[in-house]
């Protein structure tokens, strides 16, 4: 499709502003009269608030006002909600405890917001926040999910006895138990999926502006989905009706899920702007981000995988306990259920599956979707189990997987999903070849000669992107639809604006969405602008998460383009006195097929707006809107191979090579897709080797609350990656796209841990596999 169309490695249109310091992030925004906010936060993991005294703080220099939760509640601002209803297996609804934007009765995690200070400078706001006097009655705290379920554990919410939010199941328990009872071999394993902090490099920020004359609010915010933020703040938090609330998510410095949710700070800054009469800006510092951004993962699971005598998987039984933190975040209930257990068939034909999931309150920050969201947990569970089974059965891990692959599509799993297309063997073969799997034994021998323990491991992942259709997710409990919108506005001179409900915070939509239009119309990519992130410009949208922007967002653009092209063809046919069926669009011209008669694109656009010579009855203008609701999820899949060398003296793991072979369906811009995989791999490798959120189990204090305590992957922790694609187009959307944003984070942790356990010769290892843990694992068992 040419140098700027679909499939081309087009350099990004947005890069220049980022490279020259001209990006516009929320904290860069300055408006006249703007003041700075600092939140007073709980230093305790669990406590009752006896009293709050703001008088000393109010008298501090520069302080405009100090506001607390009683005032917020008196003004009718609502509690935070979870937008996805999940029912327990006994039919009862999930137990949602009250989450006040500013707590005034009970605090339930370190960092729970209590009051907001507004002052002339951020330093003065911070000083005054320290002068707010709060009398706490400390309560015992619990931070781990299994502990929270024990009798006698501290209780977080009166609505949720025993801290149990829901006890949910999927699949057929009887059929699964029967198959396990009849199995030739059963592999059993217990697995912990470690808790992570998303840590986009831009900390969250918000600027709330209340315009008294218009009774109108503007909210600048670091959001992946500004329209959802406006909807939720209007419909549930009573901040303002939608027509009185504009939400703008300008340049956003990464999200990875953590910027999907509407947090207390956006709500409180908007409200505080009305109370104080000044615009109020809050910018999180990094420690605040660790304390208050939704965390990810945190599962504990027991697994049984049953095989027949021919090494075919005949059943999988999973019992998972998921820690959801102190309150139910916006989509928290969906992550360990519909985004997790529905993927437990993996790439394998497993006739019987049963998963039971209990979700639990603890005195920790809420847990919600983080890059992959449920699918990394499912993949880690399946791929560590599959590897363990291969070792127990004494067969090659590749051949055990190969034997169990799903090979015919569509394939209905026992856990809701209907896989539409894939070729799992192609990715397995490509990855093994790229990694020179066959030559591993000699590499292991030469490493051994150098005193190093070398290991190799693989992971075959599947994931589900572009959650849809809306009616289906609605029937599963989603409070929103998961379609996307697009508007294609052709200007009178032929340049084009595409308004999308997707939101780019690193994904490069300004380039890829423009490539789609440039390819379709044959107009220069520089004549196309992508507009997103502002509820006053784009009518409605669902935002960017779950690798949905290509499959769903761009499909909406296709639908709108179809309508624009149809009208343009009618106009061209009229101008050239031809039949509209004979008009084709090529290279920026509308042409009568098989002739040299053409009319340039800009001339058709001009004709649409001058309206001097349009077909009879045609409305002037050239602008179309579309909403696209997919017919199914998409199912990216692939095979990752990690090869490591462990130094037995130090326990340090070096990644010698990392190979990723992915099926993403059709690809718009390979350069951007590769970048998405690199970033996902880094986050997955971070989970496997480095990252872990650690709360002190007795006090509930977060011990990993800075980059000095939480090990982010750095350049010298990672290798360069070897990538390839084995794409099968997705039949479910017009572009054949599957999505690529999360695969790296989903597929890589088990590949690495399988490689390290291969190197150390046994399976007793948890993530992150730090040098200390690996060294300990190499010592003789006491």
């Amino acid at each position, binding site marked *: 499709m040419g140098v700027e169309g679909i499939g081309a490695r087009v*350099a*990004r249109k*947005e*890069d*220049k*502003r*980022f*490279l*020259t*310091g*001209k*990006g*516009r*992030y929320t*904290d*860069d925004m*300055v408006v006249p009269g703007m003041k700075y906010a600092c939140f007073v936060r709980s230093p305790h993991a669990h406590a009752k608030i006896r009293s709050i005294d703001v008088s000393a703080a109010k008298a501090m220099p520069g302080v405009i006002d100090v506001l607390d939760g009683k005032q917020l509640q008196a003004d009718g601002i609502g509690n935070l909600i979870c937008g996805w209803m999940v029912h327990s297996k006994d039919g009862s609804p999930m137990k949602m405890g009250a989450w006040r934007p500013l707590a005034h009765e009970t605090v339930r995690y370190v960092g729970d917001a209590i009051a907001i200070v507004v002052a002339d*400078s*951020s*330093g003065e706001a911070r000083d005054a926040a320290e002068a707010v006097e709060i009398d706490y009655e400390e309560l015992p705290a619990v931070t781990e999910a299994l502990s929270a379920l024990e009798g006698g554990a501290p209780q977080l919410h009166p609505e949720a006895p025993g801290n149990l939010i829901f006890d949910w199941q999927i699949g057929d328990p009887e059929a699964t138990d029967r198959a396990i009872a009849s199995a030739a071999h059963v592999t059993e394993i217990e697995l912990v999926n470690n808790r992570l902090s998303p*840590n*986009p*490099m*831009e*900390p969250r920020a918000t600027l709330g502006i209340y315009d008294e004359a218009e009774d109108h609010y503007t909210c600048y915010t670091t959001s992946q989905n500004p329209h959802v933020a406006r909807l939720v703040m209007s419909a549930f938090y009573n901040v303002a009706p939608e027509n009185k609330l504009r939400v703008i998510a300008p*340049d*956003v*410095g*990464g999200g*990875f899920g953590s910027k999907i949710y509407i947090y207390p700070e956006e709500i409180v800054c908007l409200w505080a702007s009305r109370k104080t009469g000044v615009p109020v800006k809050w*910018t999180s*510092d*990094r*420690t605040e981000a660790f304390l208050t951004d939704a965390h990810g993962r945190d599962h504990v699971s027991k697994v049984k995988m049953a095989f027949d005598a021919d090494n075919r998987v005949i059943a999988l039984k999973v019992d998972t306990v998921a820690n959801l933190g102190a309150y139910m975040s916006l989509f928290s209930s969906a992550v360990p259920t519909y985004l997790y257990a529905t993927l437990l068939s993996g790439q394998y034909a497993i006739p019987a599956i049963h998963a039971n999931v209990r979700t639990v309150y603890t005195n920790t920050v809420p847990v919600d979707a983080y890059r992959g969201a449920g699918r990394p947990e499912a993949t880690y569970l399946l791929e560590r189990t599959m590897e363990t089974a291969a070792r127990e059965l004494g067969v090659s891990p590749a051949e055990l997987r190969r034997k169990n692959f799903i090979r015919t599509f569509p394939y209905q799993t026992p856990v809701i999903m209907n896989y539409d297309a894939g070729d799992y063997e192609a990715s397995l073969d490509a990855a093994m070849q790229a990694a020179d799997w066959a030559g591993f034994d000699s590499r292991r021998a030469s490493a051994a000669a150098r005193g190093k323990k070398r290991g190799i491991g693989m992971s075959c992942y599947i994931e589900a992107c572009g959650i849809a259709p809306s009616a289906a997710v609605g029937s599963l409990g989603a409070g929103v639809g998961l379609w996307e919108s697009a508007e294609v506005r052709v200007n009178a001179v032929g340049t084009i604006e595409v308004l999308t409900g997707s939101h780019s*915070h*690193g*994904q*490069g939509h300004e380039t890829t969405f423009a490539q789609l239009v440039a390819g379709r119309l044959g107009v220069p990519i520089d004549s196309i602008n992508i507009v997103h992130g502002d509820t006053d410009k784009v009518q409605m949208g669902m935002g960017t998460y779950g690798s949905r922007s290509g499959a769903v967002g761009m499909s909406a653009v296709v639908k709108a383009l179809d309508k624009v092209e149809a009208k343009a063809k009618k106009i061209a046919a009229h101008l050239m006195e031809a039949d509209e069926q004979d008009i084709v669009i090529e290279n920026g011209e509308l042409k009568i097929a098989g002739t040299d008669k053409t009319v340039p694109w800009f001339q058709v656009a001009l004709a649409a707006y001058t309206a001097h010579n349009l077909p009879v009855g045609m409305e002037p203008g050239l602008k179309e809107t579309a909403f696209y609701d997919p017919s199914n999820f998409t199912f990216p899949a692939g095979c990752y191979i990690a090869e490591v060398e462990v130094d037995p003296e130090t326990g340090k793991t070096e990644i010698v090579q990392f190979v990723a072979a992915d099926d993403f369906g059709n690809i718009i811009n390979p*350069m*951007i897709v*590769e*970048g998405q995989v*690199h*970033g*996902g*791999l*880094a*986050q997955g490798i971070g989970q496997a080797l480095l990252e872990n959120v650690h709360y002190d189990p007795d006090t509930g204090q977060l011990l990993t609350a*800075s*980059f*000095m305590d939480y090990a*982010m*992957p*750095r*350049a*010298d922790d*990672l290798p*360069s*990656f070897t990538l390839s694609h084995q794409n099968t187009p997705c039949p479910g959307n017009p572009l054949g796209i599957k999505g690529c944003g999360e695969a*790296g984070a989903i597929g890589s942790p088990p590949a690495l841990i399988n490689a390290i356990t291969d190197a150390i010769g046994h399976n007793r290892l948890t993530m992150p596999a730090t040098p200390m843990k690996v060294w300990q694992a190499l010592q003789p068992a006491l």
Partner: protein
Amino acid sequence: MTKVTLTVNGRTMSGECEDRMLLVHFIREKLALTGTHVGCDTTQCGACVIHMDGRSVKSCSILAVQANGSAITTIEGLSAQGELHPVQAAFKEHHGLQCGFCTPGMVMTAVDMINRRGGSLTEEVVRSELEGNICRCTGYHNIVKAVLAADAEMAAGRQAAE
């Protein structure tokens, strides 16, 4: 309040600030140069790297008053009007940025790295030199490629000039 005067990107600029104000906040809030970013509170992430008297520094670990009288280059001053510096151009060509937030610090670090060790960079050296700059988007793969490409291009440029 103390008056601080700096030469920033070749221009003399002044502002009043509290003694406790960090240089990065002075640059962002008093000079309105918002290309320099704050990504952590502990001098770990490198989003705030600038050049001060020709050396790269983390502007979050120095007080504005300490910088009084110095010559500062920020990301906004790295390239001539309209032109990208070879490091900026290499980041674009090799997709060394995604969300853009760490990018100004990465670029300023890379320029300093090439100034000090240009012509002798290897993947291992670049990865080690980038240890003080955290990126959450790219997995560093393309950043490393971009720095090596810029180094090669600038070395070729120096050779051609000789």
